[in-house]
């Protein structure tokens, strides 16, 4: 009895530790992201209910989740197109996200824009535009503003490996570095930009190799480990919050899908998909959680079930959200029309 009790206590202790708590949060949001995106890509899109481009972050969920956990609730986030979890972590509901993808008024852009092009300033979420890396100078400006206002918040901005080729990426980081703006930069290096592999995108080995050119620190992390990304994100956030300027975190991962829902990704060697499927951040974390005693497999199964149910309900909610009234077409181009 005593032994059993002790074991239970140990388990209990492990599952009560801050690390366990973090892991559970990470698992929850990664699973939610996976589930919501699965529905969008594999069900709603194929049913013709979602129009326009569908870009998902399958296999890359650890990046927004690890980063988002490292952010303070009042930090400002600039997600890119594979960072759905950041929205969930800031309280955007799956229903709102489905509605967004379906062009309904219940989405964050009320049908004005689609898919991941969404934001909500009251939640510290800034919407991307399509042009890759265009967010980087904007994030730099937001970070400069926080410093201007004497606030101790920071900004986190997200982008892919391909985006780093754009002039905006360079100009934005350089400005932020000169201004010592509190900006943490997360690169989702999933080794492809659409069909373009890394060696046609850049001639250096790592995106992090660019950091010295801006006089900022960088680190490379396992992009499929949310806790490692969280740790790096904390270091980056601390650095930025202390007034030391930008910090670059390169997350090495792999895009486990085509570029978008209509892309079969024939150009990716099959073997790469196989190798990287061993690295699924959700499976890896679950394994570790069980090993460390942070959760039981039953608890994990329950989590999945709960998320599936919530997602079902969210889709129902979204499908009941109306399409925007055409008479609103010309509103909000300016503060007052005219």
């Amino acid at each position: 009895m005593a032994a059993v009790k002790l074991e239970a206590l140990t388990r209990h202790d492990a599952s009560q530790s801050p690390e366990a708590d973090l892991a559970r949060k990470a698992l929850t949001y990664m699973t939610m992201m996976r589930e919501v995106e699965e529905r969008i890509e594999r069900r709603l899109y194929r049913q013709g209910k979602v129009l326009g481009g569908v870009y998902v972050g399958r296999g890359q969920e650890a990046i927004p989740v690890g980063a988002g956990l490292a952010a303070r609730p009042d930090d400002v986030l600039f997600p890119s197109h594979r960072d759905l979890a950041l929205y969930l972590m800031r309280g955007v509901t799956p229903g709102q996200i489905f509605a967004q993808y379906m062009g309904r008024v219940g989405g964050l852009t009320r049908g004005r824009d689609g898919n991941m092009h969404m934001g909500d300033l009251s939640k510290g979420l800034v919407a991307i535009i399509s042009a890759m890396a265009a967010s980087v100078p904007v994030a730099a400006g937001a970070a400069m503003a926080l410093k201007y206002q004497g606030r101790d918040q920071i900004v986190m901005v997200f982008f892919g490996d391909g985006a780093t080729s754009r002039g905006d990426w360079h100009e934005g980081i350089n400005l932020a570095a000169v201004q010592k703006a509190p900006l943490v930069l997360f690169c989702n290096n999933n080794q492809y930009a659409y069909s373009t592999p890394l060696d046609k995108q850049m001639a250096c080995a790592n995106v992090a190799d660019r950091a010295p050119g801006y006089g900022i620190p960088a680190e490379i992390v396992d992009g499929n480990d949310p806790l490692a990304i969280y740790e790096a994100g904390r270091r980056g956030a601390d650095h930025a919050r202390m007034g030391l300027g930008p910090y670059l975190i390169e997350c090495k991962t792999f895009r486990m899908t085509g570029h978008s829902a209509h892309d079969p990704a024939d150009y990716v060697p099959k073997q790469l998909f196989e190798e990287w499927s061993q690295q699924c951040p959700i499976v890896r974390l679950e394994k570790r959680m069980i090993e460390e005693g942070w959760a039981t497999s039953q608890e994990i199964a329950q989590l999945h079930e709960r998320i599936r149910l919530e997602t079902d309900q969210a889709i129902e909610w979204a499908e009941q959200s109306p399409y925007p009234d055409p008479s609103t077409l010309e509103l909000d181009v300016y503060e007052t029309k005219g």
Partner: protein
Amino acid sequence: MATTYLEAIREGLFEEMDRDPNVFLLGEDIGIYGGAFKVTAGMLDRYGPRRIVDTPISESAIVGAAIGASFMGLRPVAEMQFADFISCGFDQIVNFAAKCRYRWNAPAPMVVRAPCGGGIHGGPYHSQQNEAWFAHTPGLKVVLPATARDAKGLIKSAVRDNDPVIFFEHKALYRRVKEDLPQGDYTVPLGKANIHREGRHLSVITYSAMVHVADEAASIVAKEGLSVEVIDLRTLTPLDEDTILASVRKTSKAIVFHEATLTGGFGGEIAARITEKAFEYLDGPVMRLAAPDTPVPFSPTLEEAYLPNVDKLVAKIRQLAAY
């Protein structure tokens, strides 16, 4: 066998690449992937990576590199993945390419291909129709084919042209529009409008996807005895003013019609020229129909309200006819 608008462009590029070893393509994902819309599918197999250059995501470098290559005697055809991203290479186009012949006699024969237009649920960043910026930039030629036949003939002329050409391909036409093409090597000259449909009572002056909308509208009002002439401009610069004015002098009434937003659109230019140069012939105001002054909205209900369409044009035609 009918050829689609998209295939027509591809055929034109194949023929020009076969004809002239200096022609090469550069852009994002144009190689193994064949381009976001598959316009360049098969090119890499045929010409190899020397002539089909996949680039990093850097529109300014793509356009700039095309300029530099053109200085060395090549004939680059650059692809923007969407016309919406052409603004990322804007300075290179309007300041470098457009002005080098005038400044120092250094022509930049090159083509920038840009898939444009709405109607594909693309939202604000995959639907733009931004030709007017370039038509207001001296030194550039601006081409917007509406038919498969013209798409092939115009891309071939664009490649052979000795000035920088911005070639807007309408995405909604890529697979929807098809026809039998003339055999062999033909070109369609830049600067010549096409009388897409002859008519007597009223001229609709338009280009790109709206040509088909105008044609449909003309068919509808034809049943009411209204004979509408549809002018397909095909190129905005050079502009075929003669064909426009001849049509308006004949019909005495004109509607300028485009998918781009109204204010500051190229329709103003056309309307102004008609008024200035055919004033005495006019039996009514020159009218314009265009998209409203908003970004292109994503949701189907909004996009439908946004895009000019047959109903709106028919109403406008009736209004002007009744004037």
